[in-house]
């Protein structure tokens, strides 16, 4: 085990910090989530570290609870997109033939429409709740995971040990989960970091457009939406999520880079 490089350590530290704060939000946040504690847009002070928001709630509290919602939705959507995307991708690579053709062409079709536009189209008729958001985002993003995992699995599928497993009569499930999955794991883990960040950006964008998390529930995109009028008067409350999202995204990227580099040098090639 080599020493972890400093950039990855920083990344790991901040990633864990964000998840820690997200999980223990009710114990860390100084005030209640929707509690009105002060005046409108108070500057930062010892009582309100980041000041207050457009209706007098503590901004730090909103940010902590917002991070909880954003990170929860992004994590759930990432897990959904990886389980569906990777399973179908491996299935397509192993079975080949018409199953592969149908799945691949269908994914091509979905990817032909920008995912934000497609999400907007679907959300125009669906009730906007958190499970629906996770479902829409996860399934739309599964297309990208499908492409990656299919490409990786096609290479692994022609290896001798897979051939051996097929010849000794193992079923499809064994081939996918016991032969292919362990060998495809490293590129998938690195990709998972990138997809997670993409989900954070996606859900923030939807909430900002008013089609994601609904108030009074806090989330990072929603905080921007609630405080955007303040910008014109020189109140920077709406910019707090920018800082949070950027640091989270950069730290996860650093970790993903490290995972990818480590596994590449281990095997002399990607995957």
């Amino acid at each position, binding site marked *: 085990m080599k020493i972890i490089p400093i950039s990855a350590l920083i990344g790991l530290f901040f990633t864990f910090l964000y998840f820690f704060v997200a999980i223990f939000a009710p114990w860390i946040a100084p005030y209640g989530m929707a509690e009105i504690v002060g005046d409108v847009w108070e500057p930062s002070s010892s009582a309100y570290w980041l000041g207050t928001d457009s209706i007098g709630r503590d901004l730090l509290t909103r940010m902590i609870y917002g991070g909880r919602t954003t990170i929860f939705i992004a994590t759930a959507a990432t897990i959904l997109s990886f389980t569906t995307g990777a399973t179908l991708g491996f299935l397509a690579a192993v079975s080949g033939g018409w199953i592969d053709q149908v799945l691949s062409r269908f994914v091509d079709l979905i990817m032909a429409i920008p995912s934000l*536009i497609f999400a*907007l*189209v679907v*959300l125009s008729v669906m009730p906007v709740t958190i499970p629906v958001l996770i479902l829409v985002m996860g399934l739309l993003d599964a297309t990208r995971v499908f492409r990656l995992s299919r490409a990786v699995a096609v290479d692994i599928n022609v290896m001798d040990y897979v051939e051996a497993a097929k010849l000794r009569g193992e079923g499809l499930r064994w081939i996918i989960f016991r032969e292919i999955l362990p060998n495809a794991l490293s590129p998938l883990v690195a990709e998972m970091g990138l997809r997670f960040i993409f989900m954070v950006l996606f859900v*923030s964008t939807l909430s900002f457009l008013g*089609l994601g998390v609904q108030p009074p529930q806090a989330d990072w995109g929603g905080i921007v939406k609630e405080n955007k009028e303040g910008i014109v008067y*020189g109140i920077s409350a709406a910019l707090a999520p920018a800082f949070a*999202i*950027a640091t989270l995204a950069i730290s996860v*990227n650093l970790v993903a880079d490290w995972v990818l580099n480590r596994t590449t040098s281990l095997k002399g090639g990607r995957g």
Partner: protein
Amino acid sequence: MHPVLTLVAQRLALGILLLFAASALIFVGTQILPGDVAQSILGQSATPESLANLRKELGLNEPALSRYFSWLGNALQGDLGTALTNGRDIAESLGSRLGNTMFLAGTAAVISVPLAIFLGLLAVRYKDRWPDKLISAVTLTSISIPEFLIGYVLMYFISVKLGWFSSVAMINDGMSFFEKLNAIALPVMVLVMVVLAHMMRMTRAAILNVMQSAYIETAELKGLSGFQVIAKHAFPNAISPIVNVVMLNLAYLVVGVVVVEVVFVYPGMGQYLVDHVSKRDVPVVQACGLIFAAVYIGLNMLADIISILANPRLRHPK
């Protein structure tokens, strides 16, 4: 027929096929969902009469397949239907907004494409030295922030603190070209920053890839000057990846424009779409979705065709 023409014709046919499939998908996305569209538009408190009226207006009593074909047939003739919320003709309201959106995206493209290629070359030239590292760090940061936040950061610092440009980008037909350009300065800046990062990173990778091949080394060893190596040997092979990168990012611009228009209250198609999604105005959403998808597919198809034309190896598929 010339083999290149055949290939191009194939791509065109494929693109058109894809567009039809995408239109079907957009239609399916709004129609065959759990529950009733009319119910979800009007909400739980709707009376049975108003539900029946809306169903009739949307043609929900007919089978989905015939609704799809009449919608598609009308859309092909330029009739996009009427908006539910205000009863106006959609094609009419979209016309000027589409122009505004194209103006915004076009200006961003004109600035960002040459700049990205130049910065990409610069990063390759000074690979692993400070200009390369600086460019990488800045682009990584701007990729990690969503477009709307870049928009507000710029609005806060440039428009409010420095007072240089207006924080809302209102334009109308009475303004001269330069007044319009001045009004959209901030949104263009945001879009340029967003696509520049992607485009630059991909251009850098594409050129580095070509510069590492053996024939470039041969060209250097036989004593050609640095300029000749790049212009005669590296550039022709880098055209197709670069064109691909540019087209992909122009397609990306189509999506980025939606959010940026909302931030700067710009009267374009993106804002129109987002407004009507929250009002659950299905015909408008379908029409906008179709146009965005068409532009996106069209640009991707163009990227395919140009890279076939630029790369002899793709002209003779095995």
